[in-house]
């Protein structure tokens, strides 16, 4: 049935590690990963808990297809209550760690309590023990991986860990695995840090068995891989150019948030684009991009591996940064670049490596720096306060602030609180570009109406991956809709949100959905797990997961008033591009969205919605 059927429950306060049977009814109803992990969280954690207290729990969860031969089956999620937003957090990562945990025979790990001293969890198939991590505390993600592998004399071990940012409880600290894959958003790394949990080191040698119908599974996964290979996006576009190919697209459609959303087009976009990464540098004649890279079992291989120009000011005396490393992906390039008006590709990659090295989310970090630069230009913040002159476009300020933030120094401590808290402290809360406390990603909600609604209603705060309507509104997948039109977007957003919840819960990557839809996912889950997983059933499960997350947030204290956008997106019109003069029409879309969701006007679930979804 593809699930291992076992979970690890780790009580950090007591130092105990116990094996527990997976709740198979919950597995059937919530699939795995995001859905199933969230089900455990909402059942076991008071929604009003302080996210950084021992009473919060944090869960590493795989899906039933994680570790199988299905394409992209390397995903896992980290689920907790977010310290950045106060809402449910679920951050998804690729790489190889998730498959390794599954091959060790575990579906998920639940951590509860707080360890009195730094520890890491060592898992080697059936052996699971807490180990002292005093020697790892204060180390980066990169150092932690190296030390643990040497300690266990096992270079094949997979590590999921936090850097100094997680230890320091930076509110957007990430959990990083395989050096540069991250459960990046919502501050899951800070929760791990609050529990003195440094890392999970896993070695799994069992493989993933227990497939319901192995022959049918082999056949259907082969067929679906063929679709990915023959699709122009997943077979050619993403491996060749990665997500970064969007930089010029989104700029051209006038939806590239620039200088803290003051503008929607960036004159330097071409300098930090996928095309720029493949263009030989004037300094050394080499391209920034070295190669693409795939996660476990992935037949798309969208990942980017790059090398920084060794003569660049950020690394000129730092040979440790001269090697090839992960990045740039579109979101990081946007947040570190356009959001701050910085068009220095080498600087962006340096900062991106710092984010991976010490474990912070480049989206929230970059967006917060954007707010800082606007406050500096307005004269609210001074050079003396920040530690450097910080106008929009300053690569030196960006690099300096990244170093300060990941090391917990100076003004970096304030940046580590995120844009909402920082701007509020200095009396300008309207300058934080966020929803529910989480900073927006790389698409402007005025130029693309549906994504604005998706941000406002996202269960984890500002996020594109909870309902990626860009696929339809800009890229024409599966059908083209007009980005400037708000009519029909509530239905579109709901459809994307529900389908995404099902994909995320399977253990596969959402990028498969550029070529697949639920009818492609359903037979793979059916062959692996349960023949009741039809397209219709997956759509219903996706909707169930969405409503379960929403219900948790409502109990945490969120109301309809929190389904909103900053004043800038609702009142300050786009200055250029095809959406010139447009603001986000949230007030027109939100009532319809509540209606199609089956919610009351106050944003709570109607009793009949609960009954229909089995909540």
């Amino acid at each position, binding site marked *: 049935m593809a699930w291992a059927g076992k979970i690890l429950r780790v009580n950090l306060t007591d130092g105990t590690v116990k094996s527990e049977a997976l709740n198979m009814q919950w597995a059937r109803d919530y699939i795995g990963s995001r859905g199933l992990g969230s089900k455990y969280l909402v059942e076991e954690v008071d929604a009003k808990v302080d996210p950084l207290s021992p009473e919060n729990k944090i869960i590493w969860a795989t899906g039933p297809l994680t570790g199988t031969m299905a394409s992209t089956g390397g995903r896992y999620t980290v689920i907790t209550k977010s310290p950045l937003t106060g809402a449910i957090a679920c951050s998804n990562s690729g790489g190889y760690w998730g498959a390794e945990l599954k091959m060790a025979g575990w579906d998920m790990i639940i951590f509860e309590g707080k360890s009195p001293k730094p520890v890491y969890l060592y898992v080697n198939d059936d052996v699971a023990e807490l180990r002292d991590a005093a020697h790892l505390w204060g180390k980066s993600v990169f150092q932690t991986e190296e030390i643990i592998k040497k300690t266990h004399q096992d270079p094949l071990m997979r590590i999921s860990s936090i850097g100094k940012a997680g230890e320091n409880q930076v509110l957007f600290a990430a959990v990083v695995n395989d050096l540069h894959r991250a459960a990046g958003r919502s501050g899951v790394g800070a929760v791990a840090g609050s529990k003195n949990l440094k890392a999970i080191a896993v070695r799994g040698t069992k493989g993933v068995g227990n497939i319901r119908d192995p022959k049918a599974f082999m056949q259907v996964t082969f067929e679906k891989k063929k679709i990915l290979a023959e699709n122009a996006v997943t077979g050619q576009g993403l491996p060749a150019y990665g997500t970064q190919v969007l930089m010029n697209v989104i700029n051209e459609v006038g939806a590239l948030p620039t200088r803290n959303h003051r503008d929607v087009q960036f004159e330097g976009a071409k300098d930090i684009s*996928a095309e720029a990464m493949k263009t030989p540098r004037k300094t050394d004649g080499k391209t920034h991009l070295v190669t693409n890279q795939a996660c476990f079992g992935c037949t798309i291989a969208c990942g980017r591996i790059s090398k920084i120009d060794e003569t660049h000011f950020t690394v000129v005396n730092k040979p440790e940064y001269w090697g090839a490393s992960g990045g740039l992906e579109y979101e990081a390039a946007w947040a570190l670049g356009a959001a701050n008006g910085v068009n220095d590709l080498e600087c962006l990659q340096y900062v991106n490596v710092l984010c991976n090295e010490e474990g912070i989310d480049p989206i929230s970090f970059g967006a917060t720096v954007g707010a800082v630069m606007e406050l500096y230009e307005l004269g609210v913040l001074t050079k003396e306060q920040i530690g450097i002159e910080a106008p929009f476009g300053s690569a030196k300020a960006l690099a300096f602030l990244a170093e300060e933030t990941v090391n917990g120094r100076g003004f970096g401590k304030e940046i580590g609180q995120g844009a909402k808290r920082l701007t509020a402290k200095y009396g300008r809360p309207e300058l934080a570009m966020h929803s529910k406390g989480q900073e927006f990603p790389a698409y402007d909600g005025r130029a693309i109406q549906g994504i604005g609604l998706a941000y406002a209603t996202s269960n984890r705060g500002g996020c594109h991956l909870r309902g990626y309507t860009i696929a339809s509104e800009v890229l024409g997948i599966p059908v083209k809709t007009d980005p400037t039109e708000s009519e029909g977007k509530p239905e579109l957003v709901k459809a994307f949100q529900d389908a995404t919840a099902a994909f995320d819960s399977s253990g596969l990557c959402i990028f498969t959905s550029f070529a697949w839809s639920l009818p492609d996912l359903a037979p793979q889950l059916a062959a692996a797990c349960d023949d009741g997983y039809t397209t219709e059933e997956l759509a219903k499960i996706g909707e169930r997961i969405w409503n379960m997350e929403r219900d948790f947030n409502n109990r945490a204290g969120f109301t309809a008033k929190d389904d909103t956008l900053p004043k800038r997106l609702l009142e300050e019109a786009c200055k250029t591009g095809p959406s010139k003069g447009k603001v986000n029409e949230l007030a027109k879309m939100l009532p319809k969205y509540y209606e199609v969701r089956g919610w009351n006007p106050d944003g709570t679930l109607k009793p009949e919605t609960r009954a229909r979804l089995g909540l």
Partner: protein
Amino acid sequence: MKITLKLFASLTDWLPPEARRENQVALDYDSAPTVSEVIERFALPPKSVHLVLVNGAFITPDMRSNHRLADGDVLAIWPPIAGG
């Protein structure tokens, strides 16, 4: 009249070599061309002509042969791509 043609991703190779670093080339026309006429002039492979924008606005495939460009327009074209 002058228009700007921008070709991105794998379509970059269809630009003149000196225009590839900037991903764009300025074009002169005596009379307003349709989008299709510009595409044909550069012999762009039909399967790679996926996302077509004029001044950032999407042009549907069936409109490419009817939509005439105006002086100063920017025509940008991508093959099938996506991101996240």
